[in-house]
C-alpha cells in the first residue's frame, strides 16, 4: 500500500514527488508516455528561477527526476488507464501493466498537443504529421514543411524548423495572429518562412507517408492541392484528463476542478474526490508555466501529507 501515487512526470509531478518522499511518505510516480512532460519538447528555458543562464528543458526535467529519486520516489514508466475507489476508502490506480494500491493520489497529467481533427490525421501521425518540432524536426532535412497555427508556439516551431527544412509555410485560419509582435516579426523576417492566412487543411493525402495536403481558403472556399513532406501542428494544448472522466469533477474543456486559493479551511489542491489532489497544467486554465506547475505540485504534496495525517 502506497501513501501517494503521483500520476505524471512533468514539473508538477516531480515536485510533488520531491516533497512527499522527502516527508517519508511511500511514493510512486507513474510517468506516462512523455517522461519529463512538456518541457522536454522545448529547448532553452529562460524563466525558471535558479538558472541564471537558462537551462535546456530536458536537462531541467532530468534534474527534477534525480532530486525526487534521491529521496526515494519509485519511478514507473507506464500510463494510468483508470482509478477505482475501494470500499475501505483507499484507491486502486490501474495501468497497462498492473495496479497500485494507495491511500491518496496526486493527478499531474498536464496537457498534450491538440490534434487538428482533420481527415487522415491519424493515418499519417509519425509519418509526416508531428506535434513537436524539437522532437521530429531532424527527420525533415531539406524538406518542405507546413506549421499550422497562429500563436507564439507556431512562430517558434517554424523558426526552429528552418534549421532543417528548405522552406516552412505557416498556415493560419485567420488573417490576424495571436502571436506576440516580436515572435511574429522574427518569423516574417526569415527568408525561409512564408505565410498562408485564411486557410485551413481540408485533408491529408499520401501513400505510406504524407505527400500533400488539400487546403481550403476560408474566404473563397477554393480548394488547392499542395505537395508537402511534413505538417507540424501548433494549435495549442488540451488537458490530459480523458481517463478521469466520471471519476473527478472537471470543466467542459477537461480541466480538473480544484478547491482553489479562496478556501480558508479546505486544501487548495483538493478535487471533488476525498483523497485525490491535482496540480499543474491539468487544472490550470490560466498560467500554464513550468514554475507554476512546480508550485502547484508542492501544494498538492503538502495537502496530501496533511490529509493523510488527519486520517490517522
Amino acid at each position: 500500500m502506497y501513501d501517494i501515487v503521483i500520476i505524471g512526470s512533468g514539473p508538477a509531478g516531480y515536485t510533488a514527488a520531491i516533497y512527499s518522499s522527502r516527508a517519508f511518505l511511500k511514493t510512486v510516480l507513474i510517468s506516462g508516455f512523455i517522461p519529463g512532460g512538456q518541457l522536454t519538447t522545448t529547448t532553452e528555458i529562460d524563466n525558471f528561477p535558479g538558472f541564471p543562464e537558462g537551462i535546456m528543458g530536458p536537462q531541467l526535467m532530468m534534474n527534477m527526476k534525480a532530486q525526487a529519486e534521491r529521496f526515494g520516489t519509485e519511478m514507473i514508466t507506464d500510463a494510468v488507464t483508470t482509478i477505482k475507489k475501494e470500499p475501505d476508502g483507499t484507491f486502486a490506480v490501474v495501468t497497462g501493466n498492473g495496479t497500485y494500491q494507495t491511500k491518496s493520489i496526486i493527478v499531474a497529467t498536464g496537457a498534450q498537443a491538440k490534434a487538428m481533427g482533420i481527415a487522415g490525421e491519424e493515418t499519417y501521425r509519425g509519418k509526416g504529421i508531428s506535434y513537436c518540432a524539437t522532437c521530429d524536426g531532424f527527420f525533415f532535412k531539406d524538406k518542405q514543411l507546413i506549421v499550422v497555427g497562429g500563436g507564439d508556439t507556431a512562430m517558434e516551431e517554424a523558426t526552429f524548423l528552418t534549421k532543417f527544412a528548405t522552406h516552412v509555410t505557416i498556415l493560419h485560419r485567420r488573417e490576424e495572429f495571436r502571436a506576440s509582435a516580436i515572435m511574429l516579426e522574427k518569423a516574417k523576417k526569415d527568408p525561409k518562412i512564408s505565410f498562408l492566412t485564411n486557410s485551413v487543411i481540408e485533408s491529408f493525402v499520401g501513400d505510406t507517408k504524407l505527400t500533400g495536403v488539400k487546403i481550403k481558403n476560408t474566404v473563397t472556399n477554393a480548394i488547392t492541392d499542395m505537395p508537402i513532406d511534413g505538417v507540424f501542428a501548433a494549435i495549442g494544448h488540451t488537458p490530459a484528463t480523458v481517463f478521469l472522466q466520471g471519476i473527478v469533477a472537471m470543466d467542459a474543456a477537461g480541466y480538473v476542478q480544484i478547491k482553489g486559493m479562496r478556501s480558508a479551511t479546505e486544501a487548495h489542491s483538493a478535487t471533488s474526490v476525498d483523497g485525490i489532489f491535482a496540480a499543474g497544467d491539468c487544472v490550470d486554465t490560466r498560467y500554464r508555466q513550468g514554475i507554476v506547475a512546480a508550485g502547484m505540485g508542492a501544494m498538492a504534496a503538502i495537502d496530501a501529507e496533511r490529509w493523510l495525517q488527519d486520517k490517522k
Partner: protein
Amino acid sequence: MADIVLTDQNFDTEVMKSTIPVLVDFWAVWCGPCQTQGPIIEDVANVMEGKTKVGKVNVDENPQTAGKYGIMSIPTLMIFKNGAVVKQMIGLQSKDMIMGELKKLI
C-alpha cells in the same frame, strides 16, 4: 544476450536474414523519450532471449536505414519477421505493450 547495435552495414545480415523475429528500436542521443525507451528494450531483450532478436539503430549514425524505413519520429519500434516489417509502433512504449506484440508472433 543483450540487445545488439544495428548499423547500415549489418542491418541486412542481422535483421533481414534473421530466422527469428527482430525487434528494432530507432533512437538518438538527443531524443528524451528514447532514453526512457532504452532500458525497457534491454529488459525485453533479456526476457525474450533466444525467441526474439533485439537491436537498436542510432538514426544519426545510420541515415540509410532510418531513411529506408521512413522514420519521421522517434522512438519508433519495428518488428521484423522473415525480412518484412510486421508491426510499427511510434512513440514511447511500455514493456507490456511490446511484449504483447511479440507474443503474437511466436
